């Protein structure tokens, strides 16, 4: 239209965009550095009070250290430290993509009933001894949790594909699921023995002490398998945030993308919940932190969600074992206490809109 070219900086847009991208890469690097520091702290701190030198010795020359040191570092601290990272990342990414495909800032595995379903499945195992998949009784608790989480996720998905079902309806359905599964859980708790009750309560509160190497590997593998799927769809997922019609007009197959994403999310959300119990806050707040820091371009938003979730849970892990030295506080309780201050700083300190 106006034929007059902008006088100063013909390429202003391009250069400003490059600067913006660079700033985001710096932010992501800072998050990664903070995460590394937090994991190191998680590895270094503990009631056994080993020195940093001893920790390094056991990390790199484990054959030269005492059994106890090696077990503390390799079998007790490291699985927990790494589990915090994988679980935090998984839940945060699951929440981020749930918010993306449902276009709702309140969506998360926790708020849409997937965590509640998993808790119920686990309680079914802990209280009634019911195995939903009879083959693997030894892993009854995580498998039950996973099966129920999957059922809830698929229910949400198929409801979302029904005609006339809007995004708002989905959130309402999710809330209904939360209440349903919580009610079923209470029913089970009501029937439970004290011993089972204590286990259920501890499980629903979430705890990283359940971490073991196989669980770390499984969660890491799920993450490694799903992140590339999201990465490949980065532009399409970002487009979804401009509205369904707009995304479709960009050539995105919205229905297929939603189904793929929902299935991937349910895997990402169910596995960690089934291993470590309900950790509610990360899946909701991790993505919001990421969004406030780098916006919603998935090329930055996705890694930022991974890092924010992992960092949040890793710091929580450090805090949960330092508040009461020697004891373990349920991490689900600490996450919110650790995360809320961060969150407030971002909400009130950032010019960016939160949603």
């Amino acid at each position, binding site marked *: 239209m106006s034929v007059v070219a902008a006088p100063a900086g013909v390429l202003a847009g391009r250069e400003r965009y490059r600067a913006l991208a660079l700033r985001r890469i710096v932010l992501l690097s800072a998050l990664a550095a903070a995460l590394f520091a937090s994991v190191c702290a998680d590895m270094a701190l*503990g*009631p*056994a*009070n080993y020195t940093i030198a001893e920790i390094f010795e056991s990390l790199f020359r484990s054959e030269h250290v*005492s*059994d*106890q040191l090696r*077990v*503390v570092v390799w*079998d*007790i*601290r490291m699985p927990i430290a790494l589990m915090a990272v994988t679980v935090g990342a998984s839940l945060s990414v699951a929440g981020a993509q749930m918010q993306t495909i449902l276009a709702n800032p309140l969506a998360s595995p926790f708020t849409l009933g997937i965590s509640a379903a998993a808790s119920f499945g686990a309680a079914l195992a*802990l*209280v009634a*001894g019911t195995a939903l998949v009879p083959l693997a*009784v*030894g892993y*009854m*608790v995580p498998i039950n949790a996973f099966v129920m989480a999957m059922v809830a996720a698929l229910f949400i998905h198929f409801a979302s594909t029904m005609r006339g079902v809007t995004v708002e309806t989905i959130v309402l359905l999710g809330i209904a699921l939360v209440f349903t599964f919580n009610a079923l859980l209470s029913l089970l*708790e*009501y*029937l*439970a*023995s*004290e*011993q*089972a*009750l*204590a*286990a259920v309560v*501890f*499980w629903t509160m979430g*705890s990283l*002490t*359940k971490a*073991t190497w196989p669980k770390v590997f499984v969660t890491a593998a799920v993450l490694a398998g799903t992140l590339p799927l999201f990465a490949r769809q980065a532009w399409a997922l970002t487009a979804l945030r401009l509205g369904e019609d707009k995304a479709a007009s960009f050539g995105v197959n919205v229905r297929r993308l939603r189904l793929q994403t929902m299935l991937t999310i349910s895997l990402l959300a169910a596995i960690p919940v089934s291993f470590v119990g309900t950790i509610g806050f990360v899946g909701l707040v991790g993505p919001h932190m990421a969004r406030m820091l780098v916006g919603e371009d998935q090329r930055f938003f996705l890694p930022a969600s991974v890092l924010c979730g992992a960092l949040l849970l890793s710091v929580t892990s450090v805090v949960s*074992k330092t508040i*009461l*030295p*020697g*004891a*373990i506080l349920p991490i689900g309780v600490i996450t919110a206490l650790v995360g809320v201050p961060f969150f407030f700083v971002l909400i009130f300190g950032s010019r960016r809109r939160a949603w």
Partner: protein
Amino acid sequence: MRLFRRFAAITLAMAVTALAVWPGFAATTTVTDVTGRTVEVKTPVERVILGEGRQIYFVAALDREAPFHRIVGWRDDLAKADPETYSAYLEKYPAIGKLPTFGGMKDGTFDVEQAVALKPDVILMNLDAKTATEEAGYIETLKKVGIPLVYVDFREKPMVNTEPSMRLIGKLFGKEKVAEDFIAFRRQSISAVTDVLKRENPQRPLVFMERAGGYSDDCCMSFGDENFGKMVEIAGGINMAKDIIPGTFGTVNPEQIIASNPDQVIVTGGNWEGYVPGGAWVGVGYGADEALARKKLEALTKRPAFTGIKAVKTGEVHAIWHQFYNNPYQFVAIQQIAKWLHPDLFRDLDPDATFRELYARFLPLDYKPGYFVSLARGE
């Protein structure tokens, strides 16, 4: 003898029924329960609801001849939490299979209507259900229909509340004498430990008391300075988690066990097949398979948290029946723990014999060992 006992029981039951229908005979007694509430109860009580099935542990001790004759309803936890004891009673008293049951009184949420319909003279509740019971307003509701509710406690502060609880129930049942005998036996059994410890003042070993080890993947639930934690202290040990866990129950960082390097480890266990089928728990209890229990206890010592600790190296790892934690038979546990901690001091103390005597003097069942196993050499 058995014939005579049954005859006596029937006569007693008939006499009691006769007394019950003669209103003038039953007196109203004012009792004070463990919370300090004064409650008016028509004694002796003939119809009792047990707020927890495991209250049969003390009911049987007082009503040895016919432990279930007063019970009109109970919570359904005994069969699951302590299947061995339940089946032993069921075998002897098949009628208990048909006793009306309640679920979840832990939550204080029993069905008041059902309770009222059973027309109990009293409802016995455990202290730990107090908050929930009060929140639900059951006491007021029950008061309106004239059903008193009293709290007993063998769990929150067992060392303080066991005697008053036994005395209270003795009074309600009209079995004051039996209750006093029981209390005397308990005192004497505990003194057998504490007197020696006071006199000898031995070095106190550090003990890690693991709650329900192997019940779930989580390591390691333990006790603060109450319940089993307290019992360890009374038995002459130092409870490792005393200063770590602020309340009665809590979870210890597995690494803390390695850091503290306890001299002894005691794991509570029970047959939890009903809750965690095939779980790693140690199934000690009434008539339990000790060889199997020892094998499972051995397996628990292979967990990372127990790597290289003194207790495992020296074999000072023991398992004890979990249900002692809410049970008037706790004094037997104290004796056994004392014997584990100070084998030389208590060479002549025989907890098994104490338990046997407890059964012989107070309980309707025949004693069967299996409540304790140990990896210690010589056992």
